[in-house]
């Protein structure tokens, strides 16, 4: 009898637990639902349709969509200007991401010092480019880096240059210039991420290290940096993804020029999908380029995630 009571009690508890779990799940899904709906409408559905468009010959204007299978992809991999854009976007990423991370960390460490006066003002100033539209930055930087712009003026006043450099018009200088502008633009957001990481490190660790006689450099390399690696991996992921998808800054600053020197995959897609001279725009071909590059980004992210998990297994992260 007693056993039966215990069993019945257990069943009742289990049933109550299940009911409670279902109740919690219901609320979880209910709160996530709006996001799922919006994601499906504005992200998932366009991705699915772009796969379909990628296998079609379609201008984006007409209702006539002709299925062409993998022909767009075949054309794409034979187009040297696509590979030029592909190469450029990696040059841009590898040129900008390390500087964004390092400068962001440097500013974060400096501004994290509680003894620093006016830290919030500096923080705001460094963060300011982040809240400015990339298109506006592109236009303003176009003036600043022009032959009679501020940068050339400064370099000539300092005696570094005799004649101005056409930073945005020169095939040699255009990409480094775009990278510099991008680093300036993105350092602020990285600084905020690093600051969040820094503020999560227990102060006791520093106190103990100082008592043990460790200096600033020792504590930075032995405490700060190792403890920042987990968030660093996330920041790296975010920066790589952002840089690979760069569009607005390059569109407004150089429009992919001069002569394709800063043409990245996004500007390549834009030209194919929305511009035409005698021929019509090629939404299908542009979609194929987008899908192809999308897989590249996914592949890269998987590699980064894999490295991260390996590092975690080895207790680096």
């Amino acid at each position, binding site marked *: 009898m007693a056993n039966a009571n215990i069993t019945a009690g257990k069943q009742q508890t289990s049933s109550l637990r299940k009911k409670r779990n279902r109740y919690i799940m219901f609320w979880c899904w209910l709160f996530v639902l709006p996001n799922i709906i919006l994601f499906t409408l504005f992200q998932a559905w366009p991705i699915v349709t772009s796969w379909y468009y990628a296998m079609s010959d379609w201008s984006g204007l007409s209702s*006539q969509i002709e299925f062409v299978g993998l022909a767009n992809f075949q054309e794409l991999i034979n187009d040297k200007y696509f590979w030029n854009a592909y190469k450029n976007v990696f040059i841009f990423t590898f040129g900008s991401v390390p500087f964004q991370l390092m400068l962001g960390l440097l500013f974060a460490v400096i501004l994290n010092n509680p003894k620093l006066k006016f830290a919030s003002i500096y923080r705001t100033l460094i963060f300011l480019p982040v809240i400015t539209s990339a298109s506006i930055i592109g236009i303003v930087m176009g003036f600043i880096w*022009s032959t009679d712009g501020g940068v050339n003026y400064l370099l000539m006043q300092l005696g570094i240059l005799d004649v101005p450099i056409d930073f945005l*018009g020169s095939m040699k200088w255009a990409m480094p210039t775009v990278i510099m502008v991008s680093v300036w633009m993105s350092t602020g957001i990285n600084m905020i991420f690093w600051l969040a990481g820094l503020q999560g490190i227990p102060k006791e660790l520093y106190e103990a290290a100082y008592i043990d006689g460790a200096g600033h450099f020792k504590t930075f390399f032995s405490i700060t940096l190792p403890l920042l690696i987990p968030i660093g991996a996330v920041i790296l992921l975010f920066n790589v993804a952002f840089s690979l998808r760069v569009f607005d800054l390059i569109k407004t600053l150089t429009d992919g020029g001069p*002569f394709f020197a800063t043409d990245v995959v996004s500007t390549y897609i834009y030209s194919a999908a929305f511009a035409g001279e*005698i*021929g019509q725009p090629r939404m299908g071909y542009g979609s194929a380029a987008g899908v192809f590059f999308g897989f590249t980004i996914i592949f890269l992210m998987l590699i980064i995630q894999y490295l991260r998990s390996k590092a975690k297994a080895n207790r680096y992260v």
Partner: protein
Amino acid sequence: MKKKWLGLTVSLLSLIVFLFACNSNNETIKETGNANEGAQEENDEDGITLRVMDWSDSTRYLREEFHEQFMEKYPEVTNIEYTTLTQQQFTDTILNAIRSGDAPDIFPVPLGFSLPVLVDDGWFQPLEPIVEDGFFDIFREGTFQEGINMVDETIYSIPQQTAQPTAMVFYNKELFEKAGLDPEQPPKTYEEFREYARKITEAGNGEFYGLIEGGKQSNRFKFAIQEWGSLNGAGLADNSPVSKLTGEAPYHTEAVTDIFDLFAGLADDGSIHPRTSSLTAPEARQIFANGEAGFIIQGAWNIGVWNANNPELDYGMMTPPVSDDGRQGSIDSVAQGGFGVYAETDHPDLAAKYLEELYGGDFYQHKVVENQHNYSPVAGVIEEAATGEFLEFYELFNEILVHGPVPESENPDVTKALGEYVDVTPSAAEIMQGVAISGLRDYEPMLQDLSEQTDAALEKAITEAQDKGADVGMEDFIFPDWDPMKNYKK
């Protein structure tokens, strides 16, 4: 516990409100279509609203005046909703408006779009059934071209202006004098042009330069190659990817490479304004007006702007330079798309009246010419209303402009081949951009490659069109009986 329930209830209510808001938004969108109909019905009782959209911001003040006059004459129209956007905004907006079935009553063919494709997709309706008989007789000869304003010989759109060159040359007389050049004797050949630009640059000593261009826009270079090349015998025009004289892409021939050599020479001399790479066309126009360059390659629309904003600018105008052998051809005028009436408009008759008044009335066309904005496509208006530099420019370009053959007019199936045509990258304009502003010098093999690829792309397009049943061939793009110094009359 109570607080928890209160929180949950509030959250649930918020969610319900949110979801309802989403839902009602969708319904609002749906209803807009019906509501539009409802609104139109309401309009019919209280007065009608006509909706017009384009990118003609410089003539907006005249259009608004015209709208007042129109509404006085047709009191049933109580409101004209007139929207001006940039060309790119217009393209995006009109695409969405068409897709949602809510396009304006009157709007132009977006630039870069093929009229036959749009007609096929139900954008525009034929104008002949809705306008008065004889309305089209008021226009200049050659105003309507197959594939651009007509589909299967039916008119769908009316150009806003007459065909005109976009790569004529303006020069600064004051800078000519400073460089010891005679402002009344502008250069005639490529060699002279380069020499003049070099002398102006030397005299400027960093203050001003030989030539300025809106180098950020590759289309500015496209116009120069097309028009200057055609004067040199290239046979290029906007309505064919190949030379109309030979049926082959001419980019590797002297007719085009001469132009590239000239621009490479100008760049080597340092005669191109250093800011050219980062400028749009309007910015370059203003810098020219500021006296920072001796030459600019531009069109008639600059005249009104300079006269209004820079009356101190003493400028001259000239036809583009030619090779030492003299002129070998003409600029082949191609009509512009212009205004059409939305296929689904509720007020086709009033839209037609709008067009009749816009072109046939005695206000608007005269004013746009008088105020130096556009060359009207209506016969006789330019001769009556154009004055000063605007008239001078018109007379000047008419010396070198002809009505070349229109492949689509000869065979409407050409449109189907062009619909299959895929542009080649890099285009001649992109290569020229590299030459003029980025030090690209190895352009000859690129031009050779461009010609070969263009020929191949056209052949492929023709084959694909043929496979779909079009009766079109390479011969439809060649006009051996056309003398490029004269209008094509077959």
